[in-house]
């Protein structure tokens, strides 16, 4: 499976799965059911691109991001980062690789040590991974603070002295300390106010242009993702439903779930918004402990047929670079909003 035309592959994910056991506190050793957080996913991330990863809460998007950095051990499958097989590296090799891949978390407060000064927080990766002198580290810290739009003297402050947007800048500065090639942005803007979201997204894009970083940008709605991403992967219940270049995904969404997510993006234009018919999906996301048979989306899909209940649709390339997991993806059917909205609305 190749979806590369000319771009070089930086990360290659092959059939990765992560199941979390649901342990009962009463009989902890009993083998119980598992949460199928990530279920047999394959895709690639190109060098220098931003891949958006979208899905509702509990779909496994954050787990997938963490699997790539091997913050979780996968249940099966492999992940290749350039020439290294991330999933089979020894601890010492992995530590070396960590300098090249970093993460920015959603909660900017709990991901910063409240007892450390900002300067110390940004210096820590350098202390762990490099043999820089204290002076070099101080200079690099100041450089990083300026790079993310903070002042040099902010290094003396503690995390609680900053606003949410500023703390997210500190998180970004720390992630960039070791010149990483790849950064997983795990909902970095979800907790921020609208005007501050735009600041952080602009910053991430500027840094990408300046430093050539590759991003995996995780988010729960499409509106900001479509702005920042070159390609977008849509996840539902541990599986990728559709993956395509941002333009293709919006022009010609092949999966009914993608269509409904696009329809849910609010348009800041009252006239168009009033006329627009939204696709209202019925019901809610089923439990990942006991996912539906066949296509996992069939319980909410307005277009579901008998075959969807029985057979798992294959995740395949319908057009060059456009992947989808739907039995009817090749027919390019669109949901009719009038037929789609049921009594649940």
């Amino acid at each position, binding site marked *: 499976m190749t979806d590369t035309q000319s771009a070089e592959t930086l990360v290659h994910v092959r059939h990765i799965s992560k199941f979390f056991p649901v342990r009962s506190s009463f009989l902890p050793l009993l083998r119980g059911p598992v949460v199928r957080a990530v279920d047999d996913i394959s895709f690639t991330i190109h060098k220098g691109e931003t891949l958006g990863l979208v899905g509702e809460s509990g779909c496994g998007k954050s787990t997938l991001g963490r699997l790539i950095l091997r913050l979780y051990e996968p249940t099966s499958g492999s992940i290749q980062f350039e020439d290294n097989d991330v999933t089979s590296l020894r601890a010492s090799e992995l530590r070396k690789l960590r300098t090249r891949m970093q993460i920015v978390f959603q909660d900017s407060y709990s991901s910063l040590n409240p007892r450390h000064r900002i300067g110390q927080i940004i210096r820590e990766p350098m202390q762990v991974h490099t043999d820089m002198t204290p002076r070099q580290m101080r200079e690099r810290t100041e450089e990083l603070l300026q790079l993310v739009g903070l002042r040099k003297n902010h290094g003396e402050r503690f995390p609680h002295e900053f606003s949410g947007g500023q703390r997210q800048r500190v998180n970004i500065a720390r992630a960039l300390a070791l010149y990483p090639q790849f950064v997983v942005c795990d909902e970095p803007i979800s907790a921020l106010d609208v005007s501050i979201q735009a600041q952080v997204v*602009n910053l991430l894009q500027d840094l990408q242009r300046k430093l050539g970083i590759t991003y995996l940008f995780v988010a729960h709605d499409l509106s900001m993702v479509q702005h920042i991403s070159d390609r977008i992967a849509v996840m539902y219940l541990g599986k990728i439903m559709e993956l395509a270049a941002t333009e293709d995904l919006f022009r010609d969404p092949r999966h009914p779930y993608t269509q409904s997510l696009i329809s849910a993006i609010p348009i800041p234009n009252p006239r168009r918004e009033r006329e627009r018919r939204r696709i209202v999906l019925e019901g809610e*996301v089923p439990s990942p402990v006991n996912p539906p048979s066949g296509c996992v989306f069939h319980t909410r899909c307005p277009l579901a047929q008998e075959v969807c209940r029985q057979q798992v649709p294959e995740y395949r390339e319908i057009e060059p670079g456009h992947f989808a997991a739907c039995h009817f993806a090749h027919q390019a059917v669109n949901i009719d909003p009038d037929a789609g909205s049921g009594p649940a609305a």
Partner: protein
Amino acid sequence: MSDILSVRNLTTRFNTFNGVVHAVNGVSFDLKEGETLAVVGESGSGKSVTMLSLLHLLPKTTTTVSGTAEFKDGEQTHELLSMSEAEINRVRGRHIGIVFQDALSALNPVMTVGEQITESLTTHLGLTHKQAYSHALELLDNVGIAQPEKRFSSYPHQFSGGMRQRAMIAIAIACGPKIMIADEPTTALDVTIQTQIVELTRRLQREMGMTVIWITHDLGVVAGIADRVMVMYAGMPIELAQVDELYENPQHPYTEGLLGAIPKVGDSGAERLLSIPGAPPDLFKEPRHCQFAWRCDYAFDHCWKEIPPDFSVGERHYSKCFYDMDKEKPREQ
């Protein structure tokens, strides 16, 4: 259309150990019967506190509220802010219902959902338990909760996020209120569930002829549902207009900035988003001049001298800004 609620110069201050927080600084607005008024602002802009103040839902010991709020109930007019606890109790839930953002903490965890709905029916409408029970089942069905008989005796933790929000809406509309205040009812929900709740609220408003105040931080969400929009910043309404007018012809630099910060569908990402530099002001300081001046590209010396009044900038369109965006120069005073 007549005004159902007229708020004048509402001011709310919190007294804390670290000083006085100026949460709401002189809010005035009229609510027309049957309309949907969207109140938009970032966190800390005072949009929720304004509504909580009206309904006496803030802790009395640490809060100072002043101003007036006249609520019209048919021929009678009630002033909400000077009401006693017993009097406001007859308004809350009966005439004005409220839906909160976080349904899990707003619902009582040790009462069944059904009991929480019947509670207001028996208290306000004087229904018997039997009548209240059958009415509650209708309400649950009406807000789209399947198997109402079974769900009546469920506890909030047994509901999913979307269902809890539906249950809260059922409680809010139980007594057929004139006004429903929806305080970010969809913010904590997944996008597909968000769409469901928005559609539900729209339908209920149509069927019941309610007036709705929809509080949100997202100008995108309210574009399709609001009749008028009030934008708040640092505890003040800085712009108020008909929805079409506000989006097409924003007259305050802050509104312009908020609209620019929303990515357009189909943009390639090559364009930078407009972002507003800086962060919202410190509410511990008493406002003495335009609170947006620090972050404003158009600010000039007069902006630092006094708080701008509400300039009328179009038909029922008000902006709290000394700068005339159309003429691209400071306003004549």
